[in-house]
């Protein structure tokens, strides 16, 4: 690990630690959505970015994770037609099972995932979204139907990730509600998810995956078990989706089927393209960009030209955010082949160009993770 990487990591870790003490709840919530999106996007980047398998059904696996967690963790509720099932398991176990369930769902799809390629796979996965919506609204005892159902808060070793007005937690004068607590859970999950994916990408499997993406037949000839890898990556990526779903559910406190629709699936694709295909950092950057953009535009709509306040004629903040992220996808593909991550690396290279002569030890040639 180079010295700059260590510095960067330290800075990020410090920021992650400090943020909940200073930013208000709504920013924390958006940050948490961004973290969940980052976990999901890392998973999708393994599949689409590193292995070249187009998936438009990622939102489905988020839904499996979210509703799986709720079902495993909730106590069953009586109530005639509105009865809700549940297993009442301890919440950490429920979360693990939900992630595994998402993996199983991905595995069940693998007969299709392993046989189809490119656009065919993309549109077949699109079917998952529609089938998922249908199942979610019809399986009322599990999902709560169209309205969804409340999410039991996570409880780890007696520590509850929820607002506890009766026993408020105050750290350094800052009241710690659900979002402040979840912030740290989210940060740890994201870190774990990121490190694991980096390990996969940098190791033997990562090279095999890239070979499949670049030339599937060649990969087969070189002895990569192509079908097994493709199915395996699909399952792994589904589990990432499931984990993101669990986190989203915890932040929402109520799961609603509508959320896990086509728009969400497309947003994930946009994230990995904008951030940079095939790398962990790219997925995270893209996720933050796509999740925070609407919020930033809404927040500063009064200060920005061309964007009007809600209710007036003209381009509203929500529309501007949509248009911007659509444009970002196009612009990145046309002009920034490496995504925002590639742009950052390039800028660092450019500013660092005179360096090698003066201090060759600190040369900033791209490390393998930025190439991936």
């Amino acid at each position, binding site marked *: 690990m180079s*010295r700059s990487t260590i*510095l960067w990591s330290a*800075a990020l870790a*410090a*920021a992650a630690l*400090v943020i909940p*003490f*200073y*930013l*208000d*709840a*709504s920013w924390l*919530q*958006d940050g948490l*959505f961004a973290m969940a999106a980052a976990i999901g996007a890392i998973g999708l980047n393994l599949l689409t970015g590193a292995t070249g398998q187009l998936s438009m059904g990622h939102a489905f696996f988020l839904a499996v994770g979210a509703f799986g967690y709720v079902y495993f963790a909730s106590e069953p509720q009586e*109530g005639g*037609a*509105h009865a809700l099932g549940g297993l009442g398991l301890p919440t950490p176990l429920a979360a693990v099972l939900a992630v595994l369930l998402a993996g199983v769902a991905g595995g069940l799809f693998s007969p299709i995932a392993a046989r189809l390629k490119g656009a065919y796979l993309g549109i077949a996965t699109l079917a998952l979204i529609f089938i998922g919506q249908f199942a979610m*609204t019809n399986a009322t005892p599990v999902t709560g139907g*169209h*309205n*969804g159902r*409340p999410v039991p808060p996570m409880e780890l070793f007696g520590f509850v990730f929820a*607002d506890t*007005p009766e026993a408020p937690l*105050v750290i*350094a*004068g*800052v*009241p710690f509600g659900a*979002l402040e607590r979840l912030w740290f859970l989210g940060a740890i999950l994201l870190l774990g998810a990121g490190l694991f994916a980096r390990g996969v990408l940098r190791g033997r499997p990562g090279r095999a995956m890239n070979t499949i993406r670049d030339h599937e037949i060649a990969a087969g000839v070189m002895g990569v078990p192509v079908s097994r890898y493709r199915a395996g990556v699909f399952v792994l990526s589904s589990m990432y989706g499931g984990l993101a779903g669990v986190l989203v559910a915890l932040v*929402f*406190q*109520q799961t*609603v089927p*509508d*959320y896990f629709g086509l*728009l969400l699936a497309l947003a994930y694709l946009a994230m990995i393209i904008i951030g940079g295909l095939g790398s962990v950092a790219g997925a995270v950057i893209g996720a933050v960009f796509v999740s925070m953009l*609407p*919020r930033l535009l*809404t927040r500063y709509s009064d200060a920005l030209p061309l964007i009007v*306040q*809600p*209710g007036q004629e003209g381009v*509203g*903040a*929500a*529309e501007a955010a949509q248009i911007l992220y659509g444009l970002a996808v196009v612009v990145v593909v046309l002009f920034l082949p490496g995504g925002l991550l590639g742009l950052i690396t390039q800028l660092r290279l450019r500013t660092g160009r005179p*360096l090698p002569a*003066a*201090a060759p*030890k*600190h040369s900033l040639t791209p490390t393998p993770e930025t190439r991936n």
Partner: protein
Amino acid sequence: MGISRNSRRVAALAALALAVTACASEKATGGGGDAAASGDGIKVGPGVTADKISIGLMTDLTGPYASFGKSLTNAQQLYFEQINQAGGVCGRQLEAIVRDHGYDVQKAVSAYTEIGPKVVALAHVVGSPMVNAIKQRIEADQMLTIPQAWATNLLGSKPIQVTATTYDIDMINGVDFLAKEKGIKSGDKIGHLYFEGDYGESALNGSKYAAEKLGLELVEQKIKATDQDMTAQVTAFKKAGVKAVLVSVGPRQTASLVGVSLAGGMDVPFVGSNSAYSPQLLPTPAGPALLKDFYYITGGAPISSDLPVMKKLAEDYKAKYPGDAVDSGVSAGYSAAAIVVDALKKACESKDLTRAGVVNAHRGQNAWGQEYGGVMDFTVFDKPASLRSYVAKPDKDALGGSVVFKDAAVSDLAKEYQVPVG
């Protein structure tokens, strides 16, 4: 060089930490402050300062209910403006904080987290999925909330006030109307076209109950909001031989249903929920069919009714928003704003403008809204505030595209109906 780079970074970090510390105190103190007495001896909480009361509007300006959301927002801002010109409430000016969720649950949740701490009440929230997503927090915050949705499952929550009737009550009154005036009798079949989700399913509860009581056979057809062409549904209704059709879908689907039915020779009366009709449909090719034998049931008076308050609203609205279409959102939004402002006024009298104080003041009124055309009882919250519904009929020339066909009334059926809560 390397060292200077690093030191630059460290400096940047330090600057960041410094900038961040500057606002540290804000959060550290901002967490408390739930209820404090202001200078005039009135207890205040979030959303209320010495000279300002902030009210949230969570609306849809870019999604499928954009026209409705825009009318609601306009009408409520008009109401607040009028109150402010008359001196405000409790010596304070009203301020609306508008957030557009575009009918997206995540945006609604984010918007609530953002504006929730800054407002005393929500004068409207569009969409029952959005209300459901933030319901727990509304209850924890004791935030008086007027949903612009009338599903039964929104009942049963103290701070959430569903205005007038729920969809099921409307449908019961609608079936009663069909039986009394359109010759539907025991043994007949009636159809019900409804959306999946709260809206359709609440309405279906009502129609099922009424059909059973009157010995009618109900033919159900469930569709999704993305379905546009109702030909298959009309064919199914025709096959079953229905004598009338209840409609709990969006305006587009209503237009398609009524148009296809009439063109295909199924000339029966149609009775819709209040969300099934929109005046924007009248200029489309489906217009003539809607004018023929379509009615919709609504708990709130249409803007074209004879009530003085509606006449004045119509004039003021046209004066302030000359270019905007008038639909049911105008009267619904205006009266919802009036409910919130009246609750604030009552809370002011009891010198408690905290959120809980506003909710309590609101729940103390048992006969609100005579001038809005229907008395509502706010003291109970596990039942609809009213059981009276109007029967309205589309009309090309009327403001808002509809007129009162039959004055507000409660059917005997609706009186006996046990509302399923939750």
